């Protein structure tokens, strides 16, 4: 009598002679079935994502200023104009600074928060929920809160810094290009670091506890354990976060527009802000579409390169 689990009664099992062909045929039909399942989703994506993209490319090849006004076909003129504009490159550079600043600050904050929340202490469950609060507050509220806190008319931050001796006199946090960008990065990081914290916390819970325990028994200190065990095992998660975070940060518009409107003196005018200004303040829809297409291509290039790099790392 056969012991254990019964073998599946498949066609291949019944007729080993045609196993290869049968397997191929079954895989083919599985593929067809899978395709059938994803077709509605693909159709929806094509309708909501691909079609607008096609329209944006078409718009960028015309000379449309206002919505609802027809435009003549101008070929690549908008692209050559945009690429020859200093504002485009300056905004691109600011976008890179914005992304890098957010990546560093958010990762540092999130890593610190995740390491603390990974410990066992009374109230850790409440703390894990509490840390999410800044993430769920609507952007408009975040902006109002921070503009008020940083204001010279009743804001708390300036008096606190003056009393602590860190400042001699109140300052304007949005009064110079550098301070405005720095302040915005901090505000945006404050808003988004809980999301990154959750991701890192999830990754931390997947690190086997016995590795840490073994290292501890071998006499490794906390820093050594973090450097040799935690950090390397967090790398796959951090790599994914780098790609997702870069794409998300790059496209942030609301918090910048509501806080500084791209000022002062263009100091926080990133590419999304430039696109909005060009389309809806400068009434140059086609030129804005050209900037959008160029930005989209750059982001797509980054995503593909990052994805390949991660695949290579996984393979190695």
């Amino acid at each position, binding site marked *: 009598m056969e012991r254990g689990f019964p073998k599946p009664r498949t066609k291949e099992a019944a007729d080993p002679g045609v196993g290869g062909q049968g397997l191929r045929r079954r895989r083919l039909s599985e593929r067809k079935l899978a395709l059938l399942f994803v077709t509605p989703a693909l159709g929806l994506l094509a309708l909501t994502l691909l079609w607008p993209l096609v329209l944006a490319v078409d718009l960028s090849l015309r000379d449309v200023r206002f919505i609802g006004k027809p435009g003549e076909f101008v070929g690549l003129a908008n692209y050559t104009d945009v690429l020859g504009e200093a504002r485009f490159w300056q905004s691109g550079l600011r976008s890179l600074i914005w992304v890098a600043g957010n990546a560093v600050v958010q990762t540092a904050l999130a890593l610190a928060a995740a390491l603390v929340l990974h410990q066992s202490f009374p109230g850790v469950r409440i703390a894990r929920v509490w840390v999410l609060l800044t993430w769920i507050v609507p952007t408009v509220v975040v902006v109002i809160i921070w503009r008020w806190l940083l*204001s010279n008319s009743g804001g708390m931050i300036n008096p606190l810094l003056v009393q602590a001796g860190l400042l001699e006199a*109140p*300052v304007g946090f*949005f009064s110079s290009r550098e301070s405005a960008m720095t302040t915005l990065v901090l505000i945006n990081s404050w808003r988004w670091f809980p999301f990154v914290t959750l991701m890192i916390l999830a990754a931390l819970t997947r690190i086997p506890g016995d590795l840490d325990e073994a290292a501890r028994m071998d006499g490794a200190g906390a820093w050594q354990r973090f450097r040799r065990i935690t950090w390397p095992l967090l790398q796959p998660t951090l790599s994914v976060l780098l790609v997702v975070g870069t794409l998300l940060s790059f496209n942030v518009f609301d918090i910048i527009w509501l806080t*500084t409107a791209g*000022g*002062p003196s263009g100091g926080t005018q990133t590419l999304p802000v430039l696109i909005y200004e060009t389309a*809806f*303040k400068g*009434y140059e829809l086609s030129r804005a579409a050209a900037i959008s297409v160029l930005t989209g291509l750059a982001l797509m290039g980054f995503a593909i390169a990052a994805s390949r790099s991660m695949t290579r790392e996984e393979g190695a």
Partner: protein
Amino acid sequence: MTYKTTSSLTLSILLLGSGSALAQTELMLWHMEQPPHRVERVQELLDAFNAAHPDIVVTQEPQNWGEIYAKAPAALAAGNGPDLLFAIPDFAPILKEIGAVQDVGAFVGALDAKHDLLDSAVASYSYDNGVWAVPLYNMAMSLWYHKGAFEAAGLAVPKTWSEWQAATEKLTADGKYGIGLPASKGLYTDQVVYNFMVNNGASELYNADGTFAFDNPKTAESYAMAAALQKFSPPDSAGWFWGDAEACFASGTCASILQFTTITTYETQGGGDAAKLGVAPIPHADGESQHNTIAYANAVMLLSDDPAKRAAFETFISWLLEPANYGRFLNMEPGLFLPVTADGAKADSFWNDPLVQKYKPQIETMIANSANGMLFGFTNGRTFPSIAPISGQNVLSEVLQAVVIDGVDPAAAVAAGQVRMQDIAQ
């Protein structure tokens, strides 16, 4: 009565009823007065109008200033646009360029004959051989100040720039600032800067032929003065929007600001002592003799070419501008919206509002200041389509930021500003 007679009578009544319903002209009004109390006041007026005019039904759909520049052209292109749309002067050329706005010159002429419309209010919508909107309410900037702060410093209200500079310098001490002047990139800063220009004989952005007149020594002097006063503003004023200046004034941190009104904020957050709230004309350059200000009228555009809708529009606006109704309309935000008609400025319906009564001297000064109002790009009947993107991209405040934040010489910044305007116009 037989069954047949009864049926015929019922059918006739139904047909008559439906006939009158069919004859009703529907008007959809889009406006950007979004605060709930303003929407409520507009609805009260619409209900009253609709009840008095059974053949017309006006409905409102409040919109957002932040979205309307994109939404209105899109809606009109899709055939879902409103029949009536509120506007400010730099919004009208956009809709005119897409061919959506109707000329209302004859109607405005008739209203002027009856109510005596403010010339400057009509002027900013009069160009290209037409009048493109009916002015409804005016807004004009003034110098708002705390009387107590000036009295404590032994200062009189400044009339000239040299007096102004001396006063702001003296008032800036002990964590208080003589003036709150914005230097951010936005409409508020554009409008504040233009106050300096119009008080120094530099009101024109364009020459008669459409070339730019911005780059001139008077404009550079105006920017230099604005930058000089900006030094006596709070450090965060380079990032100010509308509410920040009012907050600074209401908290007493700023002794004075340039603003359309501070009445509501002062009443709710600044103590509300009307006797201590000062308002004055904006000081002029030492060589000038007249106090000018930025002022512009909000207006309503007709977007339908249907003769029935035009007739209904004229009936509705005529009703709204009647003194008995007009004051209630203006007081949807008491102390901010000023009358554009001579009889409206005397109407009981305007002056009977409790807040208007309390701040009557201030409002009378605001109305007097508005008489010398101008708006950049809409002076002397010379209006060119490029003013919309120039205003939209806040070129006037970009130039101030170059001076205040980047330390560029005012003359060089103004010259660069003109080049930017030329680029935009191309």
